[in-house]
Structure formats: structure tokens, C-alpha cells
């Protein structure tokens, strides 16, 4: 693993220091994806393993945020996040407007662009819908992690922001080992 992975792991350790933060998704508390390994130094008590139910996971994330937590909700592929679009676009993004600013749920969505090397997962796992989501969302910023030095500042901003926005952080699967 290269600096890209190391910075991701350092960022997750930093997020975990905040008592409000909780991590959830598939292969969060158990092994299973490259994202999992970035949580290896995070306490199991802060990791919630979810069944495969993408929309419910995102809705739970919104609810946790309304109740005072900061969920780090993980989707290893953009294509998987498509199954949670209702909660992202119609709810997480709109609750601020629906409540006249009264509710400002803050969530951190980790999403990955599937790695193509050495094995291609084919077209259903290689989606990159950054621009589409930017067009659909007003209160969610999308940050792409192009270089290792982008990673820690992005997650620090996502955690500490006070502008009532949530953050989608886009990771590149190939860069975990290439950068």
C-alpha cells in the first residue's frame, strides 16, 4: 500500500477521535474491501456492520445525523450508491431547506471508483457519477481525492464544517496501491 492508503487510514483515525463519529456500511466491522483496511485502527465500538440495504443504510445515516452523530457511511462503488439516491438527493440534501435551516444533518459519504487494475470489475462497478450528483445536490459538496495530499484536508473539512453541508468524498480504488 502506498501513501494514498496511508493517508486514508490516518484520516479515519482522526475522524474516530471525535466521539460523535460512527462508521457504517458493508465490510466495515469485518474484512471485505479495501476501504475496510483503512479502519483497522478504529475501535470496533464505532463500526456498525450493515446488511446489504443501500437506501436503508443512507436513511439510517441521516437519522443518526439528526440525532447528533456524524456518520461516515461507506459505499465502495458509485454504482452501489445509486441504490441510495432517494436518501441522498431527496432527504440528506433537502432537509435543510424543508426545515427552514432547522435541521442540518452532517454526514460523510465515502464512495469509491472501482479499481480497474489488475482486474477489471466491468461496467457495473466502474461508475463515476460525480458530475451527476453535483447537478442534483445543493447542500452536499463532492470532493475528489486525486492525490495523497488531498485526503486528510478533505476529511478534516468534512468533519469540522459548520456550513450545514454534508460531504461526499470520492476515492479511487486504483490509487490505494499506485500512489
Amino acid at each position, binding site marked *: 500500500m502506498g501513501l494514498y492508503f496511508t493517508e486514508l487510514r490516518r484520516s479515519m483515525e482522526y475522524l474516530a477521535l471525535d466521539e460523535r463519529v460512527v462508521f457504517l456500511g458493508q465490510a466495515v466491522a469485518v474484512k471485505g474491501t479495501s476501504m475496510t483496511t483503512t479502519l483497522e485502527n478504529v475501535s470496533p465500538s464505532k463500526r456498525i456492520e450493515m*446488511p446489504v440495504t443501500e437506501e436503508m*443504510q443512507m*436513511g*439510517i445515516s*441521516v*437519522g443518526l445525523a439528526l440525532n447528533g452523530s456524524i456518520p461516515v457511511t461507506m459505499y465502495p462503488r458509485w454504482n452501489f450508491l445509486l441504490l441510495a439516491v432517494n436518501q441522498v438527493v431527496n432527504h440528506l440534501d433537502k*432537509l435543510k431547506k424543508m426545515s427552514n435551516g432547522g435541521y442540518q444533518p452532517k454526514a460523510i459519504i465515502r464512495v469509491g471508483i472501482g479499481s480497474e487494475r489488475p482486474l477489471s470489475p466491468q461496467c457495473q462497478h466502474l461508475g463515476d457519477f460525480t458530475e451527476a450528483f453535483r447537478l442534483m445536490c445543493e447542500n452536499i459538496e463532492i470532493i475528489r481525492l486525486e492525490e495523497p495530499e488531498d485526503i486528510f484536508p478533505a476529511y478534516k473539512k468534512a468533519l469540522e464544517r459548520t456550513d450545514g453541508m454534508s460531504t461526499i468524498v470520492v476515492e479511487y480504488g486504483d490509487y490505494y496501491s499506485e500512489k
Partner: protein
Amino acid sequence: MTAQDLIQFENEIADLFKAKQIKAVIHLYSGGEEHMLKVFEGITPEDWVMCSWRSHYQCLLKGVPKDELKAEILAGRSIALCFPKYRIVSSGIVGGILPIALGVALGIKRSGGTNHVHCFLGDMTSETGIAHECIKYSQNFNLPITFHVEDNRLSVCTDTRTTWGKAELTFELGAPKVEFSKYVTGKYPHAGSGERIQF
């Protein structure tokens, strides 16, 4: 708050709608008042109330002052009323509020809280995939939440039982975390006041 108070409020809103004072969609209750009053006997100010597009009764019974609620409706926000001070969240999307309510309940349990989440949904919503996922999860993890299914047999004008090809709904005979009630829709249709208004 009495059943007559609830009915009178909806009638006032209907009159405002007919007078073209509300430039947005409204969904009015008509029926089920006594049951709703009974449900709210067990709801405390610290509890969360999560609703769909029809939520005027819940807002009033959770403590939102009539004038405050009416102002929000006049401002065009009847379809997804949210009142953080009263811990009310609503969504105009079918099934949209259910996993959010589940997340609030999960947060309460993880933090050791003693309050409760009450999530209201209709009969058609209760048959959706997201409802089944959320109810199953809440049961298996014993989360502090109750799903209140309000069954008027219809989704807008579509008969829930006919379209699913079943005479009895999944949660009709009761289930853990689910409270099922039936009512007959009165004078107001799914949306609007029941009269054609030319805006």
C-alpha cells in the same frame, strides 16, 4: 386537544385552500381522529414523530401551536412539515422517512437514551421493500421505535390489496414494533380540499 379541534383545523385549512391562500399541495386528514388522540397519549415531548405528507394532526398533537403550523402551511410546506423544536420530521416521498426514523432510533439506543421514535406510514407504504427492511431491522435489534400503519385501503385512488393481490396486508394482524389501525377516508381526497380550484 379534542377530535373536534383536529377536524376544525383541517376545515380551516381547506377553506384557506379554497380561497387560494395556499399555493402548494395540501393533504388533509378526515377520519381516524379518536385513534390518533389515543396514540398521542403515549408520546412525550422528548419523543420523535416522523411523518409523511399528511401530518397536520401529528404536528398539533405533538405541541406545535396552531398559528405556527398554519403559517408553515400557508408558506407552502404542508407536504413535508419539519419542526426541530418539537422533534418532528416529515417527508413527501413514499417510504422516505422510514429509514431516517430507524437511524434516529439507532442513535437513541447507542447513546443510552430513553426516548422513543414514532413513525407514521400508510398501508401502501407498509408493503414497500424499504418498509419491510426497516421494520425487520428494528425488530431484530430491538430499537426504540414504533411504526404506526394507518390503513385506509388506498394509495391515492389505488387499492393496496388489489394491486398486491392479497386480501390481508403483511402487518395487518400485528407484528413487533408495528401498530396497525384502520380508518375510512372522509370528505377530503388524497390531496386538496375536494373541490376544483382555479389558481
